[in-house]
């Protein structure tokens, strides 16, 4: 029988290191956080071979006294908190007293430090957990930590390190996050002999954002600010013309600490709803300052996740602040700026130029309307913010339908029409409307052949369309709004269609959704998603088998990326070249695009590259040509497909719905939303209490 024993401290430390120290970037993060907690105003990070060989962080902070050095590398030893209560008002970045011990346990660490008031410094070496002697030495005030041979005694983890470029990407990302939170500190990041970042102290936050992410982005940012009693929100968000295919450009800084918070990310997306295309995410740099006791950062060893005492309030504050700001800014400024960059289209009388202009107008108007509408609503938080789909909504629709019915006609709906007309002494007109409505009901909601006669009757075809006033819910969904069926379309056409159920028939509602019938019930299809899918299938068939044409660029296009994205793209250069995208390093986080797939001529090169980079960064395994090609095809299809809001002619609707088997089978929308909802006939029967 195995005996229970207390683990030796080396093992404990290795386990702790496993939680915190995942890769060189984690070391950099911990060391730089220590430097910041030590009050440093200059921090230099030097990295060799992506951090696998060595990492050196030098600061000019308060330093560590010689006699305290051994304690600094001991586990659970810290100067940052004293007792458990402190855990709930943490004002420093670190507090666990684990980082140095963990790093020391899995590497060769050399800690050199001198407090400003001491005459000389001291140095201490720790080799994979074995603590050496404290040796006096000369050094400037401050602390230098050098970490060599990371994971020297954990070969498995060492094996998991990716290429130098990728690891360096992560290191740079870690530094960027910290530098962004501390614009008052001078940061330097070197990789080998190359200087990756040099960020002078004392810049404005906006200037630092510009230095890290490009002036083009920084210039367009919209500042947001709000204060409630305890929580101050301050920062910048990008206008909708700047967006990304992932959420990595959303920087949330909580009391100077970079965090990821699903609920706040959701608040951001919610604030931009309707302004960005599906699958695009807003760019934001937001600082949240609040008393430390309102948030628990002791949730996760890397402190990336935190727990708010009142998450809902913060959610509402972020959402509310952004919406109010959008409402008061007319986003014309950035929009106009964008237009000024893209000079007028060729020929004023050309329809394209008008369209471009009106598109801007439309967007502006849409924005204002949208903001007004959203402001009017209460702000739900968390998951409840998303629209309920499926049966819940269907139930809401049917309720309203039923209410109407109960109100107007208390007797059973199955009673003959004539009887009621006499008995209740209705005016002929009202009765006609009533009958017509019934005909509509049946045409839409039940599919038994006997109904075919009803809509075909001249009475129904000629009757004025008197749909019932749709309730708000029904309106949103489009099902209850029967007046959408125009008489010309709903009458004889429908009857003709009825004769052969095989031919799909559908109507477009709200210029957004297609409502079609199938053997089993009613299908509500997102028109954009369906068309996208159809185009995608067509394109894929054409392209997969063949080579992709690459158009060489006369003027290569530089594209600014995040360090991770740049690294990911450059790592996959050969694969990208097969797709017609040739990229070359161009210094910093910029890559130079020298050729571009000819079939993508209508897309913007930087968008395409960023989306692909996002895909590469996100993907765990090595991507295949097919996967990336798929991504490109998706982008093409998405761009070319009809959008939500485009009005379609009945012929177009019919043509599109002909291909609906594509969505019904195996469609997953690339952005993870459902693309078609089915209301089965049984379900409808049940809702109408017909069974």
């Amino acid at each position, binding site marked *: 029988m195995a005996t229970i024993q207390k683990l030796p401290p080396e093992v404990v430390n290795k386990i702790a290191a496993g939680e915190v120290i995942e890769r060189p970037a984690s070391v950099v993060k911990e060391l730089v956080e220590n430097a910041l907690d030590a009050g440093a105003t200059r921090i230099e990070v030097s990295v060799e071979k992506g951090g696998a060989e060595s990492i050196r962080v030098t600061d000019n902070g308060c330093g560590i006294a010689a006699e305290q050095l051994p304690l600094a590398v001991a586990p659970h030893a810290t100067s940052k908190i004293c007792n458990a209560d402190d855990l709930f008002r943490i004002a420093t970045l670190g507090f666990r007293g684990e980082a140095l011990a963990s790093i020391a346990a899995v590497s060769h660490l050399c800690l050199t430090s001198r407090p400003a008031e001491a005459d000389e410094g001291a140095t201490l070496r720790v080799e994979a957990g074995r603590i050496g002697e404290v040796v006096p030495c000369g050094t400037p005030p401050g602390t230098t930590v050098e970490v060599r041979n990371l994971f020297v005694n954990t070969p498995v983890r060492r094996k998991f390190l990716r290429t130098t470029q990728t690891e360096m990407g992560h290191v740079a990302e870690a530094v960027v996050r910290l530098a962004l939170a501390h614009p008052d500190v001078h940061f330097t990041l070197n990789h080998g002999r190359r200087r990756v970042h040099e960020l002078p102290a004392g810049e404005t936050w906006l200037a630092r954002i510009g230095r890290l992410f490009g002036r083009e982005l920084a210039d367009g940012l919209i500042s947001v600010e709000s204060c409630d009693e305890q929580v101050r929100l301050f920062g910048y968000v990008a206008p909708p013309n700047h967006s990304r295919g992932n959420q990595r450009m959303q920087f949330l800084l909580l009391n100077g600490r970079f965090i990821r918070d699903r609920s706040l990310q959701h608040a951001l997306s919610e604030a931009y709803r309707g302004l960005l295309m599906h699958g695009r995410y807003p760019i934001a740099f937001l600082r949240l300052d609040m008393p430390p006791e309102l948030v628990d950062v002791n949730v996760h060893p890397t402190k990336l996740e935190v727990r708010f005492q009142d998450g809902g309030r913060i959610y509402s504050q972020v959402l509310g602040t952004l919406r109010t700001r959008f409402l008061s800014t007319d986003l014309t400024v950035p929009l106009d700026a964008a237009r000024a960059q893209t*000079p007028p289209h060729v020929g004023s009388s050309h329809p394209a130029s008008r369209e471009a202009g009106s598109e801007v107008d439309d967007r502006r108007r849409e924005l204002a309307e949208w903001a007004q509408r959203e402001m009017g609503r209460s702000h739900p938080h968390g998951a409840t913010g998303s629209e309920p789909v499926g049966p819940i909504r269907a139930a809401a629709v049917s309720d309203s339908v039923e209410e109407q019915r109960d109100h107007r006609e208390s007797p059973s709906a199955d009673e003959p029409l004539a009887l009621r007309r006499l008995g209740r002494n209705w005016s002929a007109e009202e009765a006609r409307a009533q009958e017509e409505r019934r005909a509509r009901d049946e045409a839409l909601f039940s599919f038994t052949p006997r109904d075919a006669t009803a809509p075909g009757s001249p009475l129904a075809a000629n009757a004025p369309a008197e749909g019932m006033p749709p309730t708000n819910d029904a309106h949103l969904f489009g099902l209850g709004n029967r007046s959408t069926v125009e008489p010309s379309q709903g009458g004889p056409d429908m009857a003709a269609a009825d004769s052969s159920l095989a031919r799909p028939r559908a109507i477009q509602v709200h210029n957004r959704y297609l409502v079609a019938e199938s053997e089993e019930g009613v299908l509500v299809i997102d028109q954009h998603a369906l068309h996208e899918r159809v185009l995608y299938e067509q394109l894929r068939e054409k392209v997969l088998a063949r080579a992709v044409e690459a158009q060489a660029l006369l003027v290569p296009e530089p594209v600014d990326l995040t360090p991770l994205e740049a690294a990911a793209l450059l790592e996959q250069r050969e694969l990208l070249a097969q797709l017609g995208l040739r990229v070359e390093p161009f210094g910093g986080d910029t890559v130079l695009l020298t050729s571009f797939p000819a079939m993508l001529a209508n897309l913007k090169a930087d968008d395409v590259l960023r989306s692909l980079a996002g895909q590469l960064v996100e993907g765990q395994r090595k991507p295949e040509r097919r996967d990336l090609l798929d991504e490109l095809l998706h982008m093409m299809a998405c761009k070319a497909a009809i959008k939500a809001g485009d009005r379609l002619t009945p012929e177009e609707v019919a043509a599109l719905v002909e291909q609906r088997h594509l969505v019904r089978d195996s469609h997953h929308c690339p952005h993870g939303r459902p693309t078609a909802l089915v209301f089965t006939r049984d379900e409808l029967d049940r809702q109408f209490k017909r069974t």
Partner: protein
Amino acid sequence: MKITCDREKLLAAFQTVNAVVPARSPKPILECVKLDVADDRATLMATDLEVGIRLDLGDLEVEQPGQVLLPAARLGAVLRELSDETVQIAASESSTELRGERSRFEFPSADPHEYPEVAPFAEEAYHEVPARLLRELIRRTVFATDPESTRYALGGVLLEMDESTIVAVATDGRRLAKMEGPAQSVGGHATGDQATIVPAKAMQLIERSISDSDAEIRLSVGPNHLHVANPRLTIYSRLVEGRFPKWRDVFPVREDAVRIAVPVGPLLSCVRQAAIVTTNDSRGVDFNFTNGKLILRSQSSERGSSEIELPIAYEDRDISVMLDPRYVIDFLRALDPEQTFTLEVENSEAAAVFSTDDGYAYVIMPLAREAASAR
């Protein structure tokens, strides 16, 4: 204000300035044109704040000078529909009246003083360019602009003027068109280091508004505008702000490329034929130069394939380069079909350079078909 003028002349003038008038504008006043009548002359003006035009109306009978704003869309329609020889326009405080022989129109009118000023040409330093050359300069470059580009300002034509030449350059990053010709600098006018990028729309307006028979055209560049004038016409345009790529750095200059004289008309016909079976995602046409002939080949899975031969004077190594036929057609269409031009090719990866002996050069970057087998 009251004038009588020739209807057809007025219509022609009107159509010229109308190109500037926006159909729908947040500032409704811009949907008008302004007619400014002095004792001996009348000027028609229009602007959308980016581009402005002033056009002299020439002979007309002035009964009473003054200014008036005319609704562009309606006035155009009236002038087109009428068949009278002359029309009479009279303005009062609140309305404008237009009379034909048997018809009368009255339009409400806004205050002409609120109309933005279209500056007359008063510069003393300018370049003089023959009208014919200027039109050619524009026609041969403007199609290569790219209004979508955000990194560079490619939505306009770059103008460079020094003592005795003018150069126009346009590119969309995939091909580049450049045309140069003689121009006389007056008063030390030169563009220097400033990137003078004129919006494509303004360039087209200039091209359409002047005719080959016009006298020398004066061009003057300000810090953010271009002014173009001849005695009867002034066009003002804002410049596109932004950077233009260093085109001289990307323009290929090479030793061992092959130069071939090719007739314009026959090649245009061949390229059009070859383009028939290309599609949007399979657009390349192979240009194979071999002894005595040029063979164009193209294929796409859904439209089939084509092979077209053109006999040319060529005796050298075989060279093949894949080009986008639309780019080639753009170039060929800008030339006289009877003409001959020089085609310079090196290999399948280097740019193809099309040039004529009158200062026109055009660069097309080749397409490459990436190996599908490497999957």
